[in-house]
């Protein structure tokens, strides 16, 4: 029997402890997903409301589309920025798997770059023209959204292919030029749909949270946003349960069994299920009232917790997939302690700087609002 070829790990030791690299990977990947869900989910929400808002009977849809239009480029900017960090840490820990799967689908993997660029400029175009409501703004946004859906498909293919070293050699021999997709893996389609629908779930929660802040300025519009997004959140969460079950049935049985046999994975899974149910109840109950309550914020918070738990679960399943090929605990480590401390200090400093800039913006907005109220 031919052995399964897997590239050796790098001869250089890991530059930091595995727990720290893993923690950073999980945190930045969660933030990346939150931004990505905002870009993709927000794009779909904006498109739907833009099309709906072309009729005068739906002024709120039009207004929401215009508001989302101004946010979409920033959502995508942070998707990319946070994605870079996730890519960095996943390369340190799983580089030999990720590089190989990326090479096998090299053309499609590299195509992500021009595709993101087109989608990004599309978002900017939409943000500049949506308010006028004329021309091809809707078409451009539709193209951008379709591109993001395509990119998500490429990512899901790569992230599943990196877990399947047994397929690599045959795929490489079939198409050494990088025209491979991981179609033979039955989990690709449910996983893709789970990710895309997950974007709708999370962005609906984000929108409910944003809608709450609009209540003060325009109660009717704010309530409309909150209730719409709460309904969407509940619907997509229901669908997410079904897709999740499909995904569990599609992944290899021994991997799925990890959820039952491994106490940590089982606990994370159980808590994630509870937290999503809590999020749904909080958002639904909070939004149904005549004046939506702070429970919506709590529901939004629980959605983020769920997202983080799902990211952790995904990581544990990845470890189960790769167990025959790598043991992270056995890798040589030589921590670059001084540089790690410097990074952590700068990280805090960076967050503080961004916070300071946002504070400047908020302070100025507050002053202007007071001035308007006074006049």
């Amino acid at each position, binding site marked *: 029997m031919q052995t399964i070829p897997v590239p050796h790990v790098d001869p250089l030791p890991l530059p930091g402890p595995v727990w720290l690299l893993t923690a950073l990977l999980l945190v930045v990947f969660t933030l990346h997903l939150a931004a990505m869900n905002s870009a993709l989910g927000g794009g779909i929400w904006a498109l739907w409301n833009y099309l709906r808002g072309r009729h005068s009977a739906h002024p709120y849809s039009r207004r929401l589309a215009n508001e989302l239009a101004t946010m979409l480029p920033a959502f995508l900017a942070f998707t990319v920025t946070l994605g870079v960090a996730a890519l960095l840490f996943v390369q340190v820990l799983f580089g030999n798997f990720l590089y190989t799967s990326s090479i096998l689908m090299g053309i499609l993997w590299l195509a992500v770059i021009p595709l993101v660029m087109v989608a990004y400029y599309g978002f900017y175009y939409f943000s500049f023209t949506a308010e006028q409501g004329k021309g091809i703004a809707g078409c451009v946004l539709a193209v951008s959204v379709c591109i993001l859906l395509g990119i998500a498909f490429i990512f899901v293919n790569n992230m599943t292919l990196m877990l399947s070293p047994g397929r690599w050699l045959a795929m490489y021999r079939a198409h050494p*030029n990088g025209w491979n997709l991981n179609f033979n893996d039955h989990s690709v389609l449910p996983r893709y749909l789970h990710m895309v629908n997950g974007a709708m779930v999370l962005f609906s929660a984000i929108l409910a949270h944003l809608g709450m802040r609009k209540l003060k300025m325009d109660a009717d519009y704010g309530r409309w946003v909150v209730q719409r997004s709460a309904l969407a959140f509940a619907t997509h969460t229901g669908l997410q349960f079904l897709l999740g079950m499909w995904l569990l049935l599609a992944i290899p049985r021994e991997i799925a069994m990890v959820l039952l046999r491994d106490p940590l994975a089982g606990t994370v899974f159980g808590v994630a299920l509870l937290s999503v149910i809590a999020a749904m109840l909080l958002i639904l109950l909070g939004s149904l009232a005549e004046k939506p309550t702070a429970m919506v914020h709590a529901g939004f918070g629980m959605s983020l917790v769920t997202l983080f738990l799902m990211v952790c679960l995904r990581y544990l399943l990845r470890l189960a997939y790769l167990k025959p090929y790598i043991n992270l605990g056995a890798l040589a480590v030589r921590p670059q302690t001084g540089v790690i401390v410097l990074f952590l200090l700068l990280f805090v400093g960076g967050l503080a700087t961004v916070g300071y800039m946002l504070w400047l913006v908020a302070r100025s907005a507050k002053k202007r609002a007071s001035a308007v109220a006074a006049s």
Partner: protein
Amino acid sequence: MNYPHWQLAIPGGMLIALVAVLHVFISHFAVGGGFFLVVTESLARRQKDAALLKYCRRHSVFFALLTLVAGAITGVGIWFTIGLVSPEATSTLIHTFVWAWAIEWVFFFVEIAAAIIYAKTWESLPARDHQIVGWIYFIAAWMSLFVINGILTFMLTPGRWIETQNFWDGILNPTFWPSLVARTAVSVILAGIFGYITLPRYEGREKVARWAALWMIAGMLVLPLSLWWYFTRIPQFSQLYLNGVLIGVRHAVRGGVGFTLLALVIALLCGVWKPRWMRAPVVALLVICGLGMIGAGEYLREFVRKPWVINQVVYANDLRASQVEALQTNGVIHTANFLLTDDPASAAYGENLFHLQCGSCHATGGYRGMKRRVDGWDAEFAADILQHIHMLRGTMPPYAGNEEDRKALGRYLAGLNPAWQFNITDGNRLEIGEKVFNSRCGHCHTVNGKFRPLRGVFEKQTPSQVQEMFPALGMMSNNMPNFNAPDDQAQALAYYIAHEAGKPLPQKPVPAEAPTGSPHSQLVRPAQPQPGVR
């Protein structure tokens, strides 16, 4: 050999270059342009110049659209591309500098946030706060350059890191500071060049044109000095490449200098002297000059590192120096993880070896295409010359495979062209002799040129005397392949060498040294005539 080789129609290195040049062009503008914007804004506010302030606002939108989208995404593009083309080298860099990249990411994050806020808050933020955001942007952007510069320079001059593997030895390497100054100067030049893209049509036009020209000129004053400083710090083998031994390098140096001087002339003429001449075609020419400067600079930076991608660690074909010996002993078939065939006797195996060993820099056709380079080679000669591949012009890694592998690759290379058949007459002997020389000798020698000239050996020889030496070539030195060309080609070759070596000497003295690209060291040996020839 650890990873599958991505087989593209073009060399992988060229793909990296395309993405990298575009990214470097925009990302340096992202640094200098941020500085330009915030300084220009302060100037406009201090002088209460509404037109200049309006220009700043317009320029900031263009700046954000270009740098946030194309600049940031092409940066990610480099990540993707190097991971696909050079996974081994990328892994080494990641394991060495993951925290440097993490720090750079923090600055990048701040930079993106600041750029978005800066472009969107011209009306909503008070002037002082808006400028604070602008300065935060510039400091974050320059710090991002500061960190990345350390990683890039490490690849050519790892310095003490080779012995210590210490992070700080790697990042603060011998070319860190000169390269940082040069890159900052380039950023300032590009800030000036891109400053013209949004040049006002009427009000404030002259002022902006002169102001942007000043930036270009200031950058151009610093750039040559910093490049000279950089030149004094790079390894000896890289200095030799830059001294003009290789044609591609010569062209790139001339191109880079030419584009820079042309940009300087345009800045002086159409920026300082007659701003009304700064029309769209002139601006387009300036942008092309900027791209040309960056293209030449990046080409040279990459080229002077050959045969390495990380000096003394990973070769340009993504092979670790430490792997070569095992490959030469055990052969590729027992070492590589991903081969397209398990049959070393098959033609597909030779092709596979070509992609594995040569595909990072060469395809069969096109730029650096092998087809024309091996025209006239037979399988035996090709297999023989592969042993000495690192000696060619100093830019090639050693051949990493056993004898069986060499023969398989030799058969593949020889099969790229039909075998030569000549009808040699007195009229075409010289021409065919030159062709044979270029095919058999020209990869390592010239007759009267700078590179390992043969004149000293053959100067006073007749064609038949020259030809008498051919059978002994393989015995003269370990670095010479056997000569096995057919008799008619040998005759023509001898005629050509004798003819060329008998020509009057050129006026300029030829340099005594040439790079050899020794596979396991950076020693540069003088190009001596082969022992025994004299």
